[in-house]
């Protein structure tokens, strides 16, 4: 009856999408453990706007800072560092460590490692999207159940509220809220969640309205199940597949909205990296540093594609279930 119960065989799209999403989540959670500090600026003079795969020699100095260059050699008490055609002598006594560092995905305008920023940006973007979806699902499922199952005045009031909220031009509202309240991450999640629960509520209400006329609800009532039990044990699990499908699409949507807000400078605030604000950083140097804008956009697209594949797969399951009945 639902994806999780009769899961004899998931359609391929669902498997591919779910694996992609899981992989992205794992990379987002674990990736930042293995990369450098995403906000560390190595040496803006030598490491700004390096293309992917570049390698630089980094000399760590006694005062805690670092200098970097294309090459370094040791000569009579000095380290000679060549940087952009010029050479600089640094007393060997000041240098505490010498290492070479490869920037696999290049660096940004001030010399931060793009790979590290993409990975910790993944954490932020996926967490904001996922938690906002959770808020929307909790509110939407609650309102939808209350509305469809109790009916009457509660139904009328809730649905009018949903209608009214759906008529609000959300982008303007988000813009306004973001501009006035300079959002923290928690506020951003709340605002995104609160602005997207209405669709879920409508969907759940529709499902409940059709499910509550079915025999199994009558049977449950006949053996004396309480309304709460019927709602959560009998109705909700049966509405799971369409809700999960809608949720997958919504996740993609929320990630896109978060990226757009952050791109406009109204979402996740620097220096916290998110995919959207990384693109905003790269916009100014679009002509000569494509990787700064392209990579975060590609990751957003990949995430949304994965979510859409999951949604498609779930729809196929729903269709299959309908055919079985």
């Amino acid at each position: 009856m639902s994806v999780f119960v009769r899961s004899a065989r998931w359609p391929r799209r669902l498997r591919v999408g779910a694996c992609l999403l899981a992989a992205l989540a794992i990379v987002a959670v674990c990736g930042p453990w293995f990369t450098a500090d995403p906000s560390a600026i190595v040496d803006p003079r030598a490491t700004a706007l390096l293309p992917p795969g570049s390698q630089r020699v980094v000399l760590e100095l006694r005062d805690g800072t670092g200098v970097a260059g294309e090459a370094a050699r040791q000569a009579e008490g000095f380290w000679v560092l060549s940087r952009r055609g010029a050479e600089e002598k640094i007393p060997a006594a000041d240098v505490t460590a010498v290492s070479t560092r490869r920037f696999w995905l290049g660096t940004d305008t001030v010399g931060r490692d793009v790979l590290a920023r993409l990975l910790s940006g993944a954490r932020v973007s996926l967490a904001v999207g996922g938690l906002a979806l959770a808020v929307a699902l909790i509110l939407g499922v609650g309102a939808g159940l209350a509305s469809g199952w109790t009916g009457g005045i509660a139904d009328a009031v809730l649905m009018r509220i949903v209608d009214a909220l759906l008529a609000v031009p959300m982008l303007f509202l988000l813009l306004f809220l973001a501009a006035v309240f300079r959002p923290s991450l928690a506020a951003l999640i709340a605002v995104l969640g609160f602005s997207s629960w209405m669709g879920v509520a409508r969907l759940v209400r529709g499902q409940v309205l059709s499910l509550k006329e079915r025999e199994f609800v009558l049977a449950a009532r006949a053996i004396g199940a309480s309304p709460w039990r019927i709602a959560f044990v009998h109705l909700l699990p049966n509405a799971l597949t369409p809700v999960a499908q809608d949720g997958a699409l919504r996740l993609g949507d929320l990630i896109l909205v978060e990226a757009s807000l952050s791109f406009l400078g109204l979402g996740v605030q620097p220096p916290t990296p998110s995919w959207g604000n990384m693109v905003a950083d790269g916009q100014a140097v679009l002509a000569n540093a494509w990787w700064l804008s392209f990579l975060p956009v590609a990751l957003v697209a990949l995430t949304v594609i994965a979510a859409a594949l999951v949604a498609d797969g779930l729809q196929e399951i729903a269709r299959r279930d309908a055919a079985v009945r």
Partner: protein
Amino acid sequence: MMRWALRRIGVGLVLVWLVATVTFALVSLAPGDAASRLTDPRIPPAARERWRRDFGLDRPLPARYASWLGSAVTGDLGTSWYHKRKVTAVIGEVLPNTLLLTSLGLALELAGGIALALVQLRRPHGTGDRWITLATLTAFALPTFGVALGLIGLFSYRLGLFPPSHMLSLEGEMAHGWTRFADLVKHLVLPVTAIGVTGVGAVTRYLRGSLLDERLEHYVLAARARGCSPRRALIVHALPNALLPLITMMGMSLPFLVSGSLIIEVVFSWPGMGQVMYGAALGRDLPLLLGGTIVATVAVVVGNLLADAAYAIADPRVRL
């Protein structure tokens, strides 16, 4: 029909009023007001007070709400703090630019979506279908700003074919007639394409699915039995029915026509509603934000109304 329309218009008016009131409350209760826009510390407190009085901000909230609502009903949405002009004048100036951009974008999106879906239906689940499915899925998943920046990077910076921003160049602004028009078209190409690309994915994906369903319906079989070619059965018989739900989708995108693809306008520096609203949000120009929100809400309500009416006209089974 008449009664239905009147009722819907009534409900719509109540909705607009509700949204306007909530937005007004949000705007008024938000920290800081017009005077906090005057950040220069040399401005004497007396001048700040006069500024607040000029904008009527010294009066209690209910009085402000009453007078704001009163003038809003008569079509006066107040004065923009930043532009120092009537909000209606500011919006009236940029709204046509947005309508031009977004209606062309929507047209491209629709035409592209129908064409692609028909191509896919020539051999469903074949190689071509799979590739187009992949392409439309990608287009659907790409963030708007990504598409816009990609187009700018490729066609403006790399190839130098189209200008990356604004609606007219300096020469175009000075010129008249044909030259001006050509300049406008040149500036339109990239933003319209950006809207088309981001929208075409959703339309194609939707239309392909519903065409696949329609194809199996009895009336299509009947048409084929009468000797209708597969192509004709698809385009003349199945397509109009598959397009029906798109009416609702298009009705829902009427607000998009007005609020515009805000991001596209910002990226392309297009002088439209989206950009003005973005500026108003950044500069906390509350009257303009309020006015713009109301205009957009009206668009939502009218869009849904028109969509329902159009649906009833297109599909006689639906009674209003």
